[in-house]
């Protein structure tokens, strides 16, 4: 690197850093965020968490009820992810360049995926809540809507990566389109796809808490209820249950991933 490009480089970095600082300043101003104050609250907040957010003896009485709601949340997430995976499989096959039927359907599939992914899950929850009411189906549909978009994009990427070459070979044997998709493309990407599905199950369990708060279902609702009742011992217990669940799901999916990939 010679002197000139080096100076240019340094100059660019300087500008870039300046932009970041300006943006940070603007963001702090618009959100009325005080960096020093914010940082100062961390130790305070941690202190509060360790002294108040404790699981107490009597909160354990609520455990059966909590576990029931937790189960509802887990089932809701799994169902939403699995059904979304089936839909995404179709959209992914239509959308991928390797397996697309025609350009129109490919663009259509990608468009659906993009819209479903970019409308936030909270928007889906709130829209669905209006007519579906306070029940599991609302939460299920909200998670489903977001998951379809995400999985379709992931599946399209996996299918695109799968080798075009075996598709060519099967076409040359006189295989039909569905035989080619079912026997050459899907076997190649299935492990990758299942890995994404497992990732989404875990993500959805976390998202389900959020959706639950908004739609009044599952563990999110229970959390919100005790949170508003200022019963922090139960809040702590619920948080603990969620953490354990997510970690277990994470461990299981890591194991599965290791074996299948």
């Amino acid at each position, binding site marked *: 690197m010679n002197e000139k490009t080096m100076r240019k480089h340094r100059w660019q970095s300087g500008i870039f850093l300046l932009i970041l600082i300006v943006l*940070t300043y*603007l*963001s*702090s101003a*618009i*959100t009325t*965020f*005080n960096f020093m104050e*914010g940082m100062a*609250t*961390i130790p*305070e*907040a*941690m202190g*509060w*968490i360790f002294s108040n*957010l404790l699981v107490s003896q009597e909160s354990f009485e609520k455990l059966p009820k909590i576990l029931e709601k937790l189960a*509802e949340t887990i*089932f*809701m997430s*799994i*169902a939403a992810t699995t059904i979304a995976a089936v839909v995404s499989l179709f959209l992914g096959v239509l959308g991928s360049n390797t397996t697309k039927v025609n350009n129109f359907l490919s663009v259509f599939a990608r468009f659906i995926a*993009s*819209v479903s992914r*970019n*409308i*936030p899950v*909270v*928007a889906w929850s*709130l*829209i*669905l809540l*209006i*007519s*579906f*009411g*306070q*029940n*599991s*189906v609302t939460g*299920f549909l909200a998670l489903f809507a977001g998951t379809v978009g995400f999985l379709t994009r*992931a599946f399209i990427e996996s299918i695109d990566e799968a080798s075009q070459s075996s598709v060519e070979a099967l076409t040359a044997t006189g295989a039909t389109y569905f035989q080619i998709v079912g026997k050459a493309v899907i076997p190649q990407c299935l*492990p990758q796809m*299942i890995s994404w*599905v*497992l*990732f989404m199950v875990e993500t959805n369990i*976390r998202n389900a*808490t*959020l959706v639950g708060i*908004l739609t009044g*279902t599952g563990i999110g609702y229970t*959390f919100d209820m005790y949170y508003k009742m200022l019963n922090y011992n139960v809040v702590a217990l619920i948080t603990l249950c*969620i*953490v354990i669940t*997510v*970690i277990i799901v*994470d461990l299981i999916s890591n194991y*599965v991933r290791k074996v*299948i990939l």
Partner: protein
Amino acid sequence: MEATYIKRKKDGRIHIMSGNKGDIVLKWTIIILAILTVVAFLFFNYAGLELGSAIRETAYNLKVMFLEPTLNHFDLGEAFYQIGITLGLAFLATIIGAVIAFFLSLMTAANLAPVWVSRTVRVFVAIIRAVPTVLWVLIFAIAAGLGSEAAILGMLFHSIAYLVKAFSEAFEEVDKGIFEALRSTGANWWHIVKSGVLPSTFTYLLSWTFLRFEINFGVAVAMGAAAGAGGIGFELFMASSFYFDLREVGFITYSILIIAFLLEVISTRLKKRYFPATTTK
């Protein structure tokens, strides 16, 4: 004479599957997910649900939302201001998260830190990740008082966890040769980081940070709606749950969609340019 290399079932038919562990686990994963899904539908709480009318109403609502978007309770300037707040929350959580994650990931990368430090940080990060962001925000809201501080601190946690994983993986891919070359010149640890690790990974780190910003925008919307963090998410919540104004919900959804879409286009470009082969998590 029957050839021994042919595997047959009991009824004499020939096997064609390999029957290796990976395939079996894969098959059972799918079967179990399918069973759990069926079970889920049996156990769902269907209280107050009338599927037919719900679907019809939702279709109608979606039509109103997307075909007749208007603003009723606030004006366009206010809308921009609220979007600005949401972007600001996302930006602050990302940038502070990136700085903290940078130092933490130096302690996590297997080639830069002792094993026990790296293990500890990893376990710590896994636990942080397991708590949903909304719970972090709500917990901070009681502990630190409501306001942007709680939202940003809550969002910070997941940003750090995400970026530590991405950054430390980027650090671990740095060529060993660079370390040895620098060490042989007597450079100290900080020097190695500054002139060996940073230059070769800087663009990666920036791309990952931007990808997280894209995610954080969605999170910030969610926190506004569910945890009172303000911004466009809060307006969305008000419009749908308080005013029941579908046209306004439509307008807000469109505005979120446009921003999210722009961010996605940029991050797809970044991904294609800087890491074509990897997929993001």
